[in-house]
């Protein structure tokens, strides 16, 4: 057997639905070891989802995942992240799942990603206090998550409530935080994540997209949201807009 044939047979042994018969029987152990290592990591990452969706169902979904998308990253964390993406469209897993199962997995996958998301070295360069002329600078680890059910707090019943959750990790803090954002603030964040523009112009786009005068109450509420976001570290400040 050529080296390439042997190595490819071993990959099939590790991940294929039906392991090949070309390898000696002693290799069966490797299939168990390869899949167990990956499954164990996913189980840790998505502990609540694992309980809600069921261990056996998750293990079967994981086997379907590696059979159809064998790990393409040397980083276990990325394989675990890719599994969540797969599982969220795995009908066999989700069809019989509790209604909040998909939202919960979505939430845990987001937390898993944010927990160790890298922060670029220049993320804080040129950031100054908030003013209307500068462009909003968002926390680089910030992710927005649209949920149909409240699953973020384990102690509360996962009732139906459409919301956008801001999930992020602050500089110098290893913990992941989250809170629900108001729709106007979510629209402001979406604008801020796009092409750089002044905060003032983006506030107008959110509150008065047709050029009409801004409602003082709405403006006050959105400025309040900005203050909360600044305090929580979701936004860092503003940066001068380069020409």
């Amino acid at each position, binding site marked *: *057997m*050529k*080296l*390439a044939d*042997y*190595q*490819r047979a*071993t*990959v099939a042994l*590790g*991940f294929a639905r039906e392991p090949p018969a*070309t*390898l*000696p029987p*002693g*290799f069966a*152990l*490797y299939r168990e*070891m*390869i899949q167990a*290592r*990956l499954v164990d990591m996913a189980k840790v990452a998505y502990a609540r989802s694992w309980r809600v969706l069921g261990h056996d169902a998750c293990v079967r979904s994981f086997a379907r995942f590696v059979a159809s998308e*064998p*790990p*393409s*990253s*040397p*980083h*276990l*964390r990325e*394989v675990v992240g890719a599994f969540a993406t797969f599982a969220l469209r795995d009908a066999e897993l989700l069809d019989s799942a509790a209604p909040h199962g998909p939202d919960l997995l979505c939430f845990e996958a987001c937390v898993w990603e944010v*927990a*160790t*998301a*890298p*922060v670029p070295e220049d993320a804080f360069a040129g950031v100054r206090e908030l003013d209307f002329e500068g462009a909003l600078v968002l926390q680089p*680890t910030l992710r927005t998550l649209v949920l149909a059910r409240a699953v973020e707090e384990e102690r509360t019943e996962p009732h139906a409530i459409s919301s956008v959750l801001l999930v992020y*990790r602050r500089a110098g803090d*290893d913990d992941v935080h989250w809170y629900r954002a108001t729709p106007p603030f979510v629209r402001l964040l979406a604008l801020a994540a796009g092409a750089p523009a002044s905060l003032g112009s983006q506030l107008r786009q959110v509150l008065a997209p047709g050029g009409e005068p801004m409602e003082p109450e709405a403006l006050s509420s959105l400025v309040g949201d900005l203050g909360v976001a600044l305090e929580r570290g979701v936004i860092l400040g503003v940066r001068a807009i380069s020409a």
Partner: protein
Amino acid sequence: MLHGIGLGLRQPLARALFAEPPPALRWLELHPENYLGRGGLYASLLAEARERWPLVTHGLSMGFGALAPYDPSALDALARFVGALGCPWHSDHLCFASVDGVYLHDLLPLPRTEEALDVCVRRIGEMSAALPVPVALEPISYYAEPPCADAALDEAAFVREVLERADARLLLDVNNVLVNAENHGYDPRAFIDRLPLERVVQLHVAGHHVRADGMRIDTHAAPICDEVYALFAYTMERLARPVPVLLERDDAFPPFAELAAEIARLDAIYREALARVGAEHVA
């Protein structure tokens, strides 16, 4: 010069390790895959570890039996990482861990053929050219013999050939030697005697699991057994010089005091072995 007992930096151990480091602990080893491009807790752990101990990197995903050349961007990232940490060398495994862009996340044995030898020498050469430090290889524990009709070399001869042709360093895992010797029926001391020990830059020591059928599985999830301690003492006497010795613990983490006790016992064996052969221990 790095020497004495080290510990693998693992997230579940870090808090206890940083709070009360064992007195005999001299250095830490880490897997680049766990830290490269990663922020948050892992970045914090790395920052604290590098302030307090010398660090050595030990890869998991770039087994030297990879058929395809390494991704240059991955090599470049590794080179910058290893260089920034001031590591004296970087090691990975004499195995294959990926093929055709698929990563097994495990260490798979290579057939001991000329073809495999040639591949390993090429990969080690690529890595050596890219990194600012020497490259060391670790022979793995394995549980089945790869099918290879033209295999002409036994395990020790294969390791020796790769080391010499690639001019590489050796990371000798004493636990792997014992596990393989028991599973495949050979004398672990005779195996060690046949290795080019002058190339050893580092040792690994760990615990393993013994299945009901007697097969030994290299889990890094159990205390070091007496047979491994004894083989470690033998290896130190054969080396007859101070080297860095790593306690590997990757799962089923016990109270940290138990690991500290293992580190103390390893340190005592290390010092006694060096004293027996008249080698000077570096304080």
